[in-house]
């Protein structure tokens, strides 16, 4: 287990390094830089001075090595767009994305798993049919479409505020007010992210349960006098969880891609939006910092999911110990 973890960690570090370096270099190769945005108001001499000041006139290799040297010490340079250190900016926004992603994952789990257990343990009936139809519909509402539809609904009905993470109510509000405000802004982006994931979970859980209820130990527990409901929940469900848990590692990636578009649609101040703004402004170090942070989250999430799976399933544990 220890060696396995170490190898996975090494791989994750390599991923973070590659992704951030590649995005830095690629963004550098792109035509224009941060000063070309202001080139209309700047005369060439002032622009050259600004570039020199920001260190953009040095050769690429020098810039890259300097950046890499800093990155190793967790200093990712300064954002030229926001005139702030990249690390504080990125960690602030990454936290917002993490809040959104965690709530969405939680919602997907509490919606998807119970429905999956329900539909998987029935062989017929209206309830099962309804769940299946809802599930295939939800699966076909990707975050882009879901967030647009929910924003439309909110704009039409005025039930929930649209846009941003909190209202611009001011700084004197208390913690409780702030939390309540956040809770009112969360449902739209979180639901848009969670719906297709919930459907995916429901389908997998349903298949897994349908397979597990035919296991002899479920029949045995029925024979001992447990009713169907208890037999399913106590005996079939824990066994079926194994294949469901395997999905969480994959879902982290979906959550990540989905959260970018949801952040853009609902103006959620997260990592995806920051990366997008940075790319548009050709803010080299910010792009690299966002990419590094994104890759880190992805790698950490996948790793966490794998470790959870290893704990839940002794077979995986022994396989990977080898």
């Amino acid at each position, binding site marked *: 287990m220890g060696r396995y973890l170490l190898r996975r960690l090494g791989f994750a570090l390599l991923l973070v390094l590659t992704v951030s370096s590649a995005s830095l270099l690629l963004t550098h190769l792109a*035509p224009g830089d941060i000063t070309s945005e202001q080139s209309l108001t700047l005369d060439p001499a002032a622009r050259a001075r600004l570039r020199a000041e920001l260190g953009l006139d040095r050769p690429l290799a020098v810039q890259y090595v300097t950046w890499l040297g800093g990155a190793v010490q967790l200093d990712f340079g300064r954002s030229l767009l926001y005139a702030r250190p990249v690390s504080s900016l990125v960690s602030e926004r990454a936290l917002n994305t993490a809040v959104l992603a965690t709530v969405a994952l939680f919602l997907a789990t509490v919606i998807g798993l119970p429905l999956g257990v329900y539909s998987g343990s029935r062989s017929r009936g209206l309830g099962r049919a309804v769940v299946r139809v809802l599930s295939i519909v939800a699966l*076909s509402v990707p975050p*882009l479409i879901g967030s647009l539809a929910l924003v439309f609904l909110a704009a039409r009905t005025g039930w929930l505020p649209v846009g941003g993470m909190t209202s611009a109510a001011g700084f004197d509000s208390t913690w409780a007010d702030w939390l309540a405000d956040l809770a009112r802004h969360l449902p739209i982006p979180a639901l848009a992210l969670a719906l297709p994931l919930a459907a995916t979970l429901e389908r997998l859980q349903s298949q897994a349960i349908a397979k597990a209820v035919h296991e002899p130990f479920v029949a045995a527990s029925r024979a001992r006098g447990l009713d169907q409901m208890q037999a399913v929940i106590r005996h079939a469900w824990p066994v079926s969880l194994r294949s469901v848990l395997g999905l969480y590692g994959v879902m982290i990636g979906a959550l990540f891609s989905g959260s*970018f578009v949801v952040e853009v649609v609902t103006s959620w101040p997260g990592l995806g939006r920051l990366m997008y703004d940075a790319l548009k402004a050709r803010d080299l170090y910010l792009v690299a910092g*966002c990419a590094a942070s994104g890759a880190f989250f992805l790698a950490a999430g996948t790793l966490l999911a794998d470790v959870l799976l290893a704990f839940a399933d002794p077979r995986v544990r022994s396989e990977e110990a080898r």
Partner: protein
Amino acid sequence: MTRRAALFVAVLTAMSLAAPWLAPYPAGQGFRDFLHAPPMRPYLEGLAPVVHPLVLADRLEQRFEADPTRSVPLPWFGGSGDQPVFLLGADNFGRDVLSRLLYGARTSLGLALFATLGAVVIGALLGAWAGLRGGWVDEAVMRVADFVLILPVIYVVLVLRAVLPLVLPSSTVFLLVSGIFVAVGWPFVAKGVRAIVAAERDREYVQAARSLGAGQGRILVHHLIPACSGHLIVQATLLLPGFILAEATLSFVGLGFPDPVASWGTMLAEAGNYNAVARFPWTLAPAVAIFAIVLATNLIATPGRES
């Protein structure tokens, strides 16, 4: 259900190909007096479907009223150009949403189909090569595939697209974006193909073919690729909606096709403004189209569930 869903996708593709004949107006034609005109409801007058023409009631509020005293035949039934008919409303430039939806399907579906085909072909070839040759080829191809699979896809696509000049001719954007999609999509195909080929290459029928003198290429094309066809179809139905969405996302944030080009993503970009979308819900039409096609591909991909 699977058949019907497949039929639906086929019909939609055919309609998008026939867009120049089906669409009432060219994709770029705007009617200045009909910005954000609402959808007109068609009804039968005798045997001919007609609509009541809209009259601008208030330019400031962009409020329109139907004129019940006059009726205009639908464009396919001899409507004239000076009195436009918007069955799905008009957008912020007074362009017919229905026409743009049809032309947009050409762009969006065409791009997604092209990229899916590319990813399936390249993934199948690389996967088969890795599975057949084994050794370092196998190792190298699969390591690269694994690496691409765990990349934060959306960031990679964003960076790759943003690196290139933002304003490009739409044919260049088409090739470029599909190239990026193929680059991130092929490993999904290659991994499965490699596993199947590696398992099948020593089976009796392959040995029989080999002993009859068939070369590697023939064995690959005639025996091993057909063995993967199920996997290839499943992967294609998974990649297609993903690519449709990816194009919509890129164009939505302004990194895909430039605005005058009709694509479902560029059309949605307008619907992203929530003040506009509440007042002009018909601009969400491409979202419905995307939902329908993703639903159809999902139904194709999961036939076994009903049994």
